[in-house]
């Protein structure tokens, strides 16, 4: 039979000061881990949720991003004729040759600038992205120097409201609409008419081509047909595959996050261990008495490990309460593949909370085990003399 859990709970209450300090220390570590995990989840979501599995993206051979890709105009014409491409209500093939560039915009605080992705697209390009919805204003008109701005990007950069102008290429461009792309990478972009942008950058060829397949089998066939055609010298991939690869831009966050988490975790382990060592030292005589009454070493060990785990469970709950308000807060990072800013939101998912709890439990187990072992294995006679 185990030592009653009320023994542990009441002892935690008895030493409120020390217990609270340990809980706060552990909570801080768990909160930091949660925050970093939420950043990573948000970044993953921005990319993983980008794209439609029926869209096939074509890049220049060997290009790993649209920015670094060129597609000859002739190839675009060939791609339009490939079998398996869906058509819109007007019977037009859903194929969009797009030009992707990077422009510099001032941030909202006006203190710095950052690269932003500018996408020249078409009506078909908008059509094969049904997740992008216009929320204010209107889409740009073909042949006009007009822009539609991603809603997330608009919140982070200055002078991106409807009616404002942005200067790039050969002159000003007017913002006429704001679109919401459901938290995908497109939320971090500015869109305009591909032909108008191409005319500003006269040497530019399309960066990429997007094609909507009729079904998943056709998408797969299209992808391989493009890649295997030696004449075209192009690479085909599913749009979702392309953006999933972009999560590599989160590698610095992941590395920093993991390093910080490990360092703080080790610190918190020692904090928990210190608290438990103090608890064991203060309760030596009680432990000796319990052993004399017949409680086994295993039950004493379990009792003190449980006490350590109680601390971290409370700390984790506190951390979740503290960090939850940050759920959905917007931030950004630089995408190493596109050299431009990716805006995303912190995502406090059940998986993030589960990770935090597991991290906390490992800390509690690690921090509590050694003192618990010592408690269970001390000599009864020595303990009773304490």
């Amino acid at each position, binding site marked *: 039979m185990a030592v009653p859990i*009320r*023994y542990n709970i009441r*002892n935690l209450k008895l030493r409120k000061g020390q217990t609270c300090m340990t809980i706060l220390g552990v909570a801080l570590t768990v909160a930091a881990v949660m925050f970093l995990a939420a950043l990573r989840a948000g970044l993953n979501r921005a990319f993983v949720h980008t794209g439609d599995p029926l869209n096939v993206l074509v890049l220049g051979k060997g290009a790993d991003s649209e920015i670094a890709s060129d597609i000859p105009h002739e190839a675009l014409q060939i791609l339009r004729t490939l079998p398996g491409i869906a058509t819109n209500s007007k019977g037009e093939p859903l194929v969009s040759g797009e030009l992707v560039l990077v422009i510099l915009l001032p941030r909202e605080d006006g203190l710095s600038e950052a690269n932003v992705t500018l996408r020249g697209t078409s009506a078909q390009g908008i059509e094969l992205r049904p997740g992008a919805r216009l929320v204010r204003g209107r889409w740009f008109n073909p042949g006009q120097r007009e822009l539609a701005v991603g809603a997330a990007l608009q919140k982070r950069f200055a002078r991106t409201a409807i009616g404002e102008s942005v200067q790039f290429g050969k002159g000003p461009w007017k913002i006429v609409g704001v679109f919401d792309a459901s938290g995908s990478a497109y939320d971090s972009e500015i869109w305009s008419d591909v032909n108008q942008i191409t005319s500003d950058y006269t040497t530019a060829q399309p960066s990429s081509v997007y094609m909507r397949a009729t079904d998943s089998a056709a998408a797969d066939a299209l992808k391989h047909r493009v890649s295997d055609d030696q004449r075209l010298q192009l690479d085909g991939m599913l749009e979702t595959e392309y953006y999933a690869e972009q999560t590599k831009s989160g590698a610095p966050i992941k590395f920093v996050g993991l390093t910080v988490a490990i360092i703080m975790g080790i610190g918190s382990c020692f904090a928990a261990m210190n608290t438990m060592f103090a608890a064991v030292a203060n309760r030596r005589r009680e432990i000796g008495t319990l*052993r*004399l009454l*017949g*409680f*086994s*070493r295993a039950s004493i060990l379990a009792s003190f490990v449980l006490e350590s785990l109680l601390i971290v469970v409370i700390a984790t709950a506190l951390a979740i309460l503290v960090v939850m308000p940050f759920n959905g807060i917007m931030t950004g990072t630089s995408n190493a593949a596109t050299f431009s800013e990716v805006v995303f939101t912190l995502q406090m998912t059940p998986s993030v909370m589960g990770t935090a709890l597991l991290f906390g439990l490992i800390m509690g187990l690690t921090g509590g085990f050694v003192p618990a072992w010592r408690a269970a294995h001390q000599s009864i*006679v020595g303990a009773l003399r304490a």
Partner: protein
Amino acid sequence: MTTASVAPNTSIATTDLPAVAVRNVTKVFRRDSIELKVLDDVSIEIGNGDFVALMGPSGSGKTTLLNLIAGVDRPTAGDLIVSGYNVFALNDGQAARWRNQHIGYVFQTFNLIPVLTAFENVELPLLLTTLSPSQRREHVIAALRLVGLEDRMKHLPRQLSGGQEQRVAIARAIVTDPTLILADEPTGDLDSQSATEILEVLKRLSQQFGKTIIMVTHDPRAASYAHIIRHLEKGRLLSNDGNR
């Protein structure tokens, strides 16, 4: 004839055996390079139902002998049979179970768990039995009633007087109906009146319930409550006429 077995090959038929048989027990403590012989070839037999007071000056080995009998320490040499068990042949887990079933211990400093109520303290040994919660409750109330503290069962130790704490400790010691009660200076931290109350309880346990009690004390007044008084001096048990 009854046999109670905590572990195979460690129990002995109990019918004609004394409650405690200590045979040529020696205990040596080693502190750095210094050896301290705390018990030197001690032999003693205590019969069932005896109330024995073990007296001696500080450092004579009284508590050490009590700890050996309780199975919480091991001798350097010698044998010890308690309630039919070769105590030193038990491993740690077996010894713990054996103590729970056969030994009730009363400490000088009471050793109640501060965060548990009187009821919960007395219930502790019963948590290691197979009794149901309602059965445990019955036993606890009976034990507290016997020591006259049924009305204090929800009090924490800090809400009790010294004498009341010691009575709760005695209730805890007897709640499993152990074969043997060991009391180490049970009145050492008490005032005269409280001490008398405690000694009266122990006397009642001996006379009315036939419990075998070994009480370590340096107080002649406390010792007078026992049937038998034995003296330890420098680790050696004096004969009943005071000689070694």
